């Protein structure tokens, strides 16, 4: 085999049985995540997968690698703190449209702005699945939902437009039905230096009949196939991200290849070879005492 570490899909398997609905988009997403980790030759022991609360989080024990399954809406600051502490561990965070765009939307704003160096995969299935189908910020207006029997009265948000408005360093979109394409996008996200935002348009077989697998399949196109598309141009990304009804752009919509991540911007960490995890020991404080004399 032509690989140096020979990491295989098998290394990321878990003995636990999946608990998602039949044909849930999560199966495709998990498959793509594993493929991307394997393709990037990341050993499970060098990966930290961080899960929010929601259907995505119920996969936290259905995959290998180091994993943390935390609080609803809070996966981003957790992953930020973890990634800053040890840059040798590859950190990927997962969250749904419920937790990410409601409870934890402040974290999303600041993670994009801070440009922490980790990958975030947003499972956007346009509803709160695990709590049985309430509306999220991406649920279509007028659609009857659990707790909104006469239909949702709020306009849905175009997540990508919101993200691009924050000047991200990496913004990509994929569709849960195309594992091969998702794998490539996640690999690109893993390789990017800075906060890699990946929105996955995900079908939900139980609570979202409006946009099933087939609906997306008929509408998505790969931006890399669009002639002359320049992913370094934020304005182009904003333009192509608008359409969520007819022709839906997927792929790496925007990437700043000169991106400098948060840690690398810190003046007092420049030139330091060790990681924060390597530096825990007793320190002398004598040098700091003169100002108190």
């Amino acid at each position, binding site marked *: 085999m032509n690989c140096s570490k020979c990491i295989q899909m098998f290394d990321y398997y878990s003995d636990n049985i999946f608990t998602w609905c039949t044909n849930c988009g999560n199966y495709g997403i998990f498959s793509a995540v594993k493929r991307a980790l394997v393709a990037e030759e990341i050993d499970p022991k060098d990966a930290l997968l961080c899960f929010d609360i929601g259907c995505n989080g119920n996969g936290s024990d259905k995959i290998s690698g180091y994993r943390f399954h935390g609080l609803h809406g809070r996966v981003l600051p957790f992953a930020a703190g973890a990634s800053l502490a*040890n840059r040798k561990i590859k950190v990927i965070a997962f969250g749904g449209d419920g937790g990410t765009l409601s409870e934890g939307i402040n974290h999303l704003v600041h993670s994009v702005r801070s440009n922490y160096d980790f990958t975030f995969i947003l499972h956007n299935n346009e509803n709160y699945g695990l709590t049985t189908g309430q509306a999220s910020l991406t649920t279509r207006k007028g659609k009857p939902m659990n707790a909104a029997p006469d239909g949702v009265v709020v306009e849905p948000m175009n997540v990508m437009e919101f993200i691009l408005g924050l000047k991200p360093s990496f913004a990509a979109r994929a569709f849960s039905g195309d594992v091969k394409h998702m794998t490539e996008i996640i690999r690109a996200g893993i390789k990017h230096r800075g906060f890699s935002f990946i929105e996955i348009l995900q079908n939900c077989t139980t609570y979202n009949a409006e946009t099933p697998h087939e609906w997306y399949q008929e509408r998505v196109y790969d931006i890399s196939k669009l002639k002359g598309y320049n992913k370094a141009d934020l304005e182009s990304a904003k333009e192509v991200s608008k359409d969520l009804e007819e022709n839906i752009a997927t792929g790496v919509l925007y990437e700043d290849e000169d991106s400098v991540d948060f840690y690398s911007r810190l003046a007092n960490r420049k030139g330091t070879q060790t990681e924060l995890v390597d530096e825990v020991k007793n320190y002398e404080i004598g040098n700091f005492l003169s100002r108190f004399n």
Partner: protein
Amino acid sequence: MTNNRLVIKICGSSGQGINSVGELTAKAIKKLGYKLFGYREYPSLIRGGFASYQIDFSDNTLRSSSKKSDVLISLGRIATHKYLKDLNSSGILIHSLKGMKFEQDEEKFIKENRIKVIFLDAFDMADKLGGKTIIANIILFGLMWKVFAFPIEVVDETVREVFAGNPKYIELDLKAFEAGYNFDLSGVEQIKVPFKKNEKWKNSMIITGNAAVALGSISAGVRAYYSYPMTPSSSILSYHADFYKDTGVLVKQAEDEITAIQMAIGSMFMGTRALVATSGGGFDLMTETISLSGMTETPLVCVIGQRPGPATGLPTWTADGDLNLAIYAGHGEFPRCVIAASDLESVYTLTQRAFDIAEKYQIPVLMLTDKQIAEALFNIDSFPKDSEVKRYLVEGDELKRLISSDRYKFVNNGISSRWLPGSSEATFVANGDEHMEDGSVNEEAVNAKQMMEKRMKKLETLYQELPSPMLYGEETADIVFVGWGSAKAAILDAMDQLKKAKSSQSISYLHFDYIYPLKTEEIMDLSEKARKVVLVENNYSGQLGNLIVQKTGYRFNELLLKYDGRPFFVEDILNYLKKL
């Protein structure tokens, strides 16, 4: 002078340089060789209101503030009205307020207490010196220096040190000092300082509790500090930022408290040491993460700098009212440790101990301080000995023998093996859901019960190893006080006073640094031997007392509680004893 100390209080409104002249006074008095304690009162605003900076100084024994002062220096009318009646009899008021009119009762107070009022038109003088009115504070300082007949040599050096950041003002400040010092004081009796000078204090440090938190955490190997500003903990963030070029500590002002504590638990999970500090309101937001720390057995340390609540409360004042919050915060039942600092030495040591306990038992540790500890100026000649950093992690060849289910393995003392991402092939999930030994979700009754018992077992193990409360004095004393937090300083000072005065009353004090899990042997012992046991707390309901009642059924003979936003002054204790 009362209580074996002399007290200078400098007051005015925010923005008049009260802090800088306070710092100058503290440093200059220290350089003379006296032991001091500094205390600030200020409003939650940037300009106006009233603010004060109080320096108590004495010989070696001094840990707290007096309510009363001997010399009051005032740059503001509101502040003068507020603090005048806190002067001791025969005290001196030095002010710069042209046409200052005292109320009838104030005139009476001045007369009855033989207060000497000295007016110096410092604002006009400042103008003539070509400076801004901001140097009026230094002019009054000069006059005060003369009132005490202090030697002028140390002032030059101190001014140069305090204003080193603003060199162009140094000459002007020295001129301002001279102008004040040369004021004609005929008719005013100079104050003779009766205390012995001690060389050791000349080179000592003047340092706040928050600086000691920052230094204690640096010495304990904290490599990341995450925080959202909130009084009285904000300056820990500033200190870490001030030191960060030399320490290499990652300092991040987070977007909110939830972020700060989540970043901290993320960094701690990965394996470094990260600190978070806040006040009660900010901690309210963090509590879900405290529960997560308990469930995932991820070590976590949070400093809660207390101030009076509820809600915004008195943002810049003090209280010890968040003990219940620390003990009960977070949903569900999980082991934790709550410790409370009481002075500079303890805040330094406990910051280090907090990380040791958190990592050894894989639990959240909450360290309480209060505004009095956080911002008071402590005078110390050296820091306590550092605790050794131990990690309690699986190391070396042991890492190769691990299997995933070792992480939350059912072990007798409840403390399963802990290892870090990247260190072993045996990966696991740290799960906020109830889980099995490898972290995988499990909702079976048998497992849920066993896992809860395993986690809670750590509380028993911790209880066995925690230090007992500290008894100062004899348990057979006439009165035994019991307390925690900054009240300790006033109680110990009162004990010294009584000893000096050869009082027939004997008192002692049982102090809790380690509050939860609560050690009860000493208190049960006291209940049998002591004649009178009095609970002292800087809160309304006697929260430590209630915890003791809850655990032992013991009821205190009396309660001495204070909840007006002010710390315990030494008079609070002495006056209480007088009334008995």
